[in-house]
C-alpha cells in the first residue's frame, strides 16, 4: 500500500512547478488580448509535458494516468491558462478508441500541442450525429474557439455516441463568448451538417470512461488551485496586521483557514484514491471519480471564496490574484456539466455499490 505519489512523480511535479513559476502568463491572458497562454503552451510542448501520457509509438512517454494527474495538479496550482484538460482527454479518447489513421494523424500533433481538443460531453446531447454528419448548437464549450478538433457526444440512430470533428470544417460556426474565467475561454459551437467521425460505439462505455477521467483530472486541477489559494492566504494572514496583531491570530481567521485546510486534505485523499482507481481501470472508477470531483469542487470553492474574505478589500481589486482563484473555481466547477449532475452520479454509484 502506498497512498502518495511515487518518488518519480514527485520529481516530475517539482520540475513542472519550477517551469510554471517562471513562465506563467495567466495575468496577461486575463488582462486581455490572448485566448490562452500560448508561450507557456509552447514551452510545455517543447519539454514533452503534453505528450507525457501518449504511447511511446506516437512520440509520448506512456507515463500513465497518475502522472497526468500530477501534471493537472501543478497546472491547477499555477492557475495556468492552457487547454490541457480537453487536449489530454482528446488524446486518451483517440488512444483508446481511434482508428489507426486517427492515431497517426492526431496523437503526435496533440502531443506537440499543435492540435488542441475541446470537450463537449453531455448526458442529454443537444446535437445529433446522423449519416456521418453533426448538426446542432452547443452554447458554451471551453476552448471551443481555439481548438482544432472537438470531442462531441451526440444523439445517433442507436443512442448517444461520441464523435470527433475538425473545427475548421465548412459548416462550423464558432463565436467566442465572455467567460466567467477569461483565462479559460469559452465559445459557442454551431454545426450545420458537418462531417465528423465516430469514436467507439454508442453504449460501449467510452463516454462514461472519458468523463470519469476528465473528472479526475479536473479534481486535481481544483486541488492544486485550492492549495495555492490556501498558501497565499495563510501567508497574508501572517503578514497583515489589524488591531495590533497579525490577523492570523484571530480565532475566526484561524478557523476559516483550518476549514480550508480540512477541505483540501479531504479533496486530496479522494483525488489520490481516484487516481489509483483510474490507473486500475476497475469498477471502483465511477464512484471514485464522482467523489473526487464533488470533494474537489467543494474544496476549491471554499478556498477561493474565503481567501477573498480573509484578504479583505485588497483582494477585490483587479490587480490582485484572488480573483483568478475565484474565477477558476467557478469555471472548473461547471466545465464538465452542472455540479448537481456529479452529486447525482456519486449517489447512483453508491446505490449500485450498496445493492451489490
Amino acid at each position, binding site marked *: 500500500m502506498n497512498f502518495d505519489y511515487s518518488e518519480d512523480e514527485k520529481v516530475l511535479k517539482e520540475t513542472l512547478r519550477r517551469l510554471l513559476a517562471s513562465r506563467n502568463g495567466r495575468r496577461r491572458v486575463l488582462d486581455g488580448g490572448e485566448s490562452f497562454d500560448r508561450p507557456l503552451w509552447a514551452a510545455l510542448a517543447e519539454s514533452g509535458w503534453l505528450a507525457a501520457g501518449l504511447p511511446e509509438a506516437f512520440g509520448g512517454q506512456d507515463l500513465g494516468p497518475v502522472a497526468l494527474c500530477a501534471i493537472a495538479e501543478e497546472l491547477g496550482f499555477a492557475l495556468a491558462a492552457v487547454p490541457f484538460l480537453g487536449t489530454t482527454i482528446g488524446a486518451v479518447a483517440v488512444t483508446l478508441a481511434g482508428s489507426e489513421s486517427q492515431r497517426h494523424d492526431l496523437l503526435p500533433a496533440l502531443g506537440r500541442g499543435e492540435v488542441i481538443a475541446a470537450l463537449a460531453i453531455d448526458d442529454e446531447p443537444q446535437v445529433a450525429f446522423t449519416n456521418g454528419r453533426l448538426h446542432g448548437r452547443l452554447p458554451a464549450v471551453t476552448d471551443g474557439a481555439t481548438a482544432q478538433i472537438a470531442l462531441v457526444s451526440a444523439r445517433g440512430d442507436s443512442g448517444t455516441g461520441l464523435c470527433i470533428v475538425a473545427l475548421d470544417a465548412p459548416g462550423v460556426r464558432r463565436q467566442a463568448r465572455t467567460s*466567467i474565467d477569461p483565462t479559460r475561454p469559452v465559445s459557442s459551437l454551431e454545426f450545420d451538417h458537418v462531417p465528423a467521425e465516430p469514436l467507439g460505439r454508442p453504449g460501449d462505455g467510452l463516454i462514461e470512461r472519458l468523463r470519469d477521467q476528465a473528472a479526475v483530472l479536473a479534481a486535481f486541477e481544483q486541488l492544486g488551485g485550492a492549495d495555492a489559494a490556501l498558501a497565499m492566504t495563510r501567508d497574508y494572514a501572517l503578514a497583515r496586521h489589524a488591531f495590533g496583531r497579525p490577523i492570523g491570530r484571530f480565532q475566526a481567521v484561524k478557523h476559516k483557514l483550518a476549514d480550508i485546510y480540512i477541505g483540501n486534505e479531504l479533496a486530496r485523499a479522494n483525488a489520490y484514491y481516484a487516481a489509483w482507481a483510474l490507473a486500475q481501470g476497475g469498477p471502483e472508477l465511477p464512484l471514485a471519480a464522482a467523489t473526487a470531483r464533488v470533494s474537489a469542487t467543494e474544496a476549491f470553492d471554499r478556498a477561493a471564496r474565503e481567501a477573498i474574505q480573509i484578504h479583505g478589500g485588497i483582494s477585490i481589486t483587479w490587480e490582485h490574484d484572488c480573483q483568478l482563484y475565484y474565477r477558476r473555481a467557478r469555471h472548473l466547477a461547471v466545465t464538465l*456539466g452542472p455540479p448537481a449532475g456529479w452529486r447525482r452520479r456519486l449517489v447512483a454509484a453508491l446505490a449500485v455499490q450498496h445493492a451489490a
Partner: protein
Amino acid sequence: MDFEDSPAEARFRAEVRDWLAAEAPRFVPTPDADEAERVRLVRAWMRCKADAGYAGFTLPPELGGRGGTALEEIIFLEEQAKVPVAHIETFNLGPSTIIPMLRVHAAPELVAELAAPTIRGEFCWCQLFSEPDAGSDVAAIRTRAVRDGDDWVINGQKVWTSGAHIADWGLLLARTDPARPKHQGLTAFVVPMRSVGVEVRPLKQISGRSEFNEVFFTDLRLPDRLRIGEVNGGWRVVVTTLSNERLALLSDRTVGRNLVGPLLRLAARSGGTAFLDDTEFCARLASYYATVAGVDHIRKRLITTLAKGGAPGPEATVGKMTIARLMQEMAIFGIDLAGAAGEAIDPVDPDLAEIQDCFFTAPGYRMGGGTEEIAKNVVAERVLGLPPEPRADKDVPFNRGAGG
C-alpha cells in the same frame, strides 16, 4: 402588531406617489447614459426634490430642510424606490450621514454653509477613512496632518473611497499625533475634493467596474476652520459617522441585491413549475428568502423605531452578517444551476446576467462597512455582553505599536 400605514401615513404616501408620478419621469436616465449624464440627472433630481420640500426631511428649514419627520422620509424613500429615477448611491452619503454628523461635531456656521447645498445635490460627499493598512481597523490609519500656522498640511493615501471621482467634498480622518495611542491621535477634516494636492485614481474591481478610488494627498493645505471636532478628537467623529452609516445601511441597496426573482425566473425558464420538485432548489431558495424577508422586516422595524424617535437596536447589523454571504452562495448556486451555460457571461438572459454580476460584486458586499467577522464581534460584545478579546494595541503610542 401592524405592518401597515396609519391613515395619516397612508395620506402622505398617496401625496408622495402622485408627486413622484408627475415629476420623476423627467429624471430617468436613458439606458446608454454615461456617468456624467447620470450625475447631472441626480443633481437635478435632488434640486427638484429640495424645491418641493421632499429633501432634508428632518433638517430645520433654516438649514434648507423640510422640518418634517423621519417617518415622512421613510415613506418617501419607499415610494421613490418604486420608480425608475436617476440614482447614484454616493449622493446619499451627505444627507444621510455627513450632515447629521456635522450637526453634532462642527461649528454652526460650517453646518449652515454645507447643509443646504448638500441636500440640493450641489455638494456630493465621500468618506476618506480606509487606507491600505487600515481596513477593519480604521484607527490604524497613517495619513498625516501637520499643523502649519493656521493651516494643516495633509500627506498620505486613502483607499476604497466610493464616489471620490464625483465628490465635491470629503470627510477625512488623519493622524495628528503619532506619539499618542492609536485612537487618541486622530483628527477629522472636511476637504474640498477639487483642491490642489488631491489626486483621485479609480480602482478597478474584479467586476471590471470602478466604483471605488484611491485618493492621494500631497502637501494638501487645509485651513483650520475645516477641522471637525477637537484636535486629536477624531475618533469621536468616526464613531458618530459610522453609527449614522449603519443607519444608512438600512437603505436596502447597500446590504446586497435580492436574487429571489432572478433565481425563480431562471428556474421557471427550464420548465414551468418543475422547480417545485427540485428539493435542493426549494431548500436553498426557502432558506435564502427567509433571511431576505427577515432582514427586510427588521429594517422596517428599525426605521419605524427611528421614526418614532427611538434608538435602533443591535439588529441593524443582522442584514450585514447574513445577506451578502447568502447572496454570494446563491449566485454560485444559480451559476451552477445553469451548468456549462453559467460559464459564459450571458448578454441575453437578464436573470442569469444579474446572478453572474452578483457573483462578482458579492465579495465586496461581504466587506463593505466592516466585515461579517467584525460585525459578529460587535453583536457578541454589545448585545450579548460577552467580554472583549484582549487587545495589546489600544494603550500604546501609535508610533511604538503596530503603526511604528
